[in-house]
């Protein structure tokens, strides 16, 4: 009897050890280990206490998509500030009670600014922010502010619109396919912008949407892409995190786009362009503001104008006049004259959502809950 319980105990210890190793997955940059030694070797240096900044990631940094892009931003901060900053990140943090623990832990470790990079971290971040008034918190893609918590986002839909222009020019079946994650305003904006962009060059465009109810499941993304191709779509785009849709298009001899990262090398034949997001500029600004004591709690949404988005590596097969059109819209974004949702915007049930020539404000964009004309089907609702 006692042997068995000992063995069981051993087994459980092994589990615990593995959980500890794998589950937490906290990584610190090697730089950090070296940093504390520096003042000892150079005692003359005046208090070179680096600013500690931390990032909380939803996925692994190796996802080649969303989290990878955030980590590129973190590296940009390191490159910009060098010894003046000490960065840490925790990856694969679930949007559960674990998130709160991880964020609190990072705050307790003396990080002065903490970036939480997924929508589901909103409440945990808010809660921990109330406990650490001296620490600044920055939450990506959310909408709730606190005196020491700001939110930031980028204008993905600006990219999606440009991709739509390219897609509209390249489709032969007049059918575009969109692999969606969840029907939230952010994703609906991208679907609508993509369709509106395509309609500027090809008014007959239809967009088919398939929801997969996850951000990351490569085989499922591939299945959804395949079903869109089966339904006649010949240009695909996705709002999910892997390159599976692009690779499915390559396999079937269709077109598709990269999302969040440059995916041109993965499917050179199918790749029309990659929709990029650059978090670096904002991270550098936020960290710099904390250093200078000028940090403010606000909502910041950056796009082309601030260098936070970009459609890159456009395929050579795309006609020159289309490339030129894309460049023109990019210039318009930078000048603030172009907006994918400039009126008139009509939804796919014929209702006018924005009158002709009206420019949408942020509140309008926050509440997008419909498909524009040209998108097939209905937005799934819980009702």
């Amino acid at each position, binding site marked *: 009897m006692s042997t068995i319980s000992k063995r069981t105990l051993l087994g459980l210890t092994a589990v615990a050890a593995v959980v500890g190793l794998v589950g937490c997955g906290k990584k610190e940059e090697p730089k950090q280990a070296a940093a504390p030694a520096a003042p000892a070797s150079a005692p003359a240096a005046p208090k070179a206490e680096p600013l500690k900044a931390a990032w909380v990631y939803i996925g692994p940094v190796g996802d*080649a998509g969303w989290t990878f892009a955030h980590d590129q931003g973190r590296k940009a901060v390191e490159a910009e500030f060098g010894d003046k900053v000490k960065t840490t990140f925790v990856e694969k943090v679930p949007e559960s009670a674990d998130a709160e623990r991880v964020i609190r832990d990072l705050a307790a470790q003396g990080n002065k600014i903490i970036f939480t990079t997924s929508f589901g971290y909103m409440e945990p971040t808010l809660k921990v922010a109330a406990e650490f008034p001296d620490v600044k918190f920055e939450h990506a893609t959310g909408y709730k502010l606190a005196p020491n918590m700001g939110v930031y986002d980028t204008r993905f839909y600006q990219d999606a619109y440009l991709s739509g222009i390219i897609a509209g020019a390249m489709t032969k079946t007049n059918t575009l396919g969109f692999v969606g994650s969840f029907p939230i305003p952010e994703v609906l904006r991208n679907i609508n912008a993509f369709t509106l962009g395509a309609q500027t060059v090809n008014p007959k465009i239809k967009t088919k949407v398939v929801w997969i109810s996850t951000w990351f499941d*490569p085989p499922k993304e591939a*299945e959804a892409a395949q*079903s869109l191709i089966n339904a006649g779509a010949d240009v695909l785009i996705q709002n999910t995190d892997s390159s*599976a849709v692009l*690779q499915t298009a390559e396999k079937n001899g269709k077109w598709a786009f990269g999302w969040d990262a440059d995916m041109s090398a993965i499917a050179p034949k199918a790749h029309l362009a990659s929709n990029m997001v650059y978090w670096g500029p904002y991270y550098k600004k936020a960290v710099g503001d904390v250093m200078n004591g000028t940090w403010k709690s606000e909502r910041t949404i950056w796009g082309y104008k601030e260098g936070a988005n970009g459609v890159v590596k456009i395929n050579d097969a795309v006609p020159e006049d289309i490339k030129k059109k894309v460049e023109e819209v990019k210039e318009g974004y930078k000048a603030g004259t172009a907006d994918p949702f400039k009126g008139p915007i009509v939804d796919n049930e014929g209702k006018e959502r924005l009158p002709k020539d009206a420019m949408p404000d942020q509140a309008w964009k926050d509440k997008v809950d419909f498909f524009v004309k040209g998108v097939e089907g209905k937005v*799934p609702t819980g009702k």
Partner: protein
Amino acid sequence: MDTLALLIAATLASGTPLAIAGLGLLINEKAGVLNLGAEGMMLVAAIAGFAAAFTTGSDIAAFVAGAAAGALLAAAFGVLVIWLNTNQYATGLALSLFGYGFSAFVGVGYVGQKLSERTAFEVPGLGQIPFIGPALFRHHPMVYIAIGLIVVAMWFLYRSRAGLVLRAVGESPESAHALGYKVRWIRLLAVVAGGALCGMAGAFLSVVYAPLWVEGLVAGRGWIALALTTFATWRPWRVLLGAYLFGGVTMAQFALQGAGVNVSSQLLAMLPYLATIVVLAVISRNPTWIRLNMPASLGKPFHPGT
């Protein structure tokens, strides 16, 4: 019609990895060993297979590497639970978590890498038949091998002497031991074979189905395969049926969405699991069914000489 043919084709491809992994786990469980490490084995095999395909360009090498990786992990699991009598549930869970971390660790350099050009497969002659051709005869050979494996397993488990011994070990290891069979070695063989099959399923996902490597690629299919063995009440042909059903529900849901039909994707996504629970509830209500199908010593350690 074309849409239906393509839907059938997608269903077969989607069900194949589930069927192969489910069959592997069924063989484990028929021998009395429950391996919750399927997800981990499939992940490690997926990266092993992807790496092999990436370096050699050969699908055969990829499946051999995947099967070997799965078998190796399963062997380690087998030694732990069969000889050291560690708790099967805890050890299996540990294997899943280990596999997740380990595959991510060794796979870092393969993220975003691209396999060489895949050739399209087609059964000569049959592939050109309208409707039936695109639906049934234009698949990767593994899709047909999976069906073959199921048939072989049916024959092996229920028509061969070795299969009878394997089932005896799962039903009553004491009796098998008393008859002079080496219970532990037979269990180890079953576990290794199951691991190899899970490994082939993992390699199919990363080399043929996705085809790419990213951390967490298997995304829960190991757990579906585990549910599948129960869903199938430990019958090989029902594993195949269940795998196609699970795959088919997903694909039908996507096809409906693509056709513009307004269905709740969340509702359809939960259907396979709901079906598993219903089957569990039904078979658990009837003690005879349980006794007939569920290996009586499933998950119980065996100590010879006690």
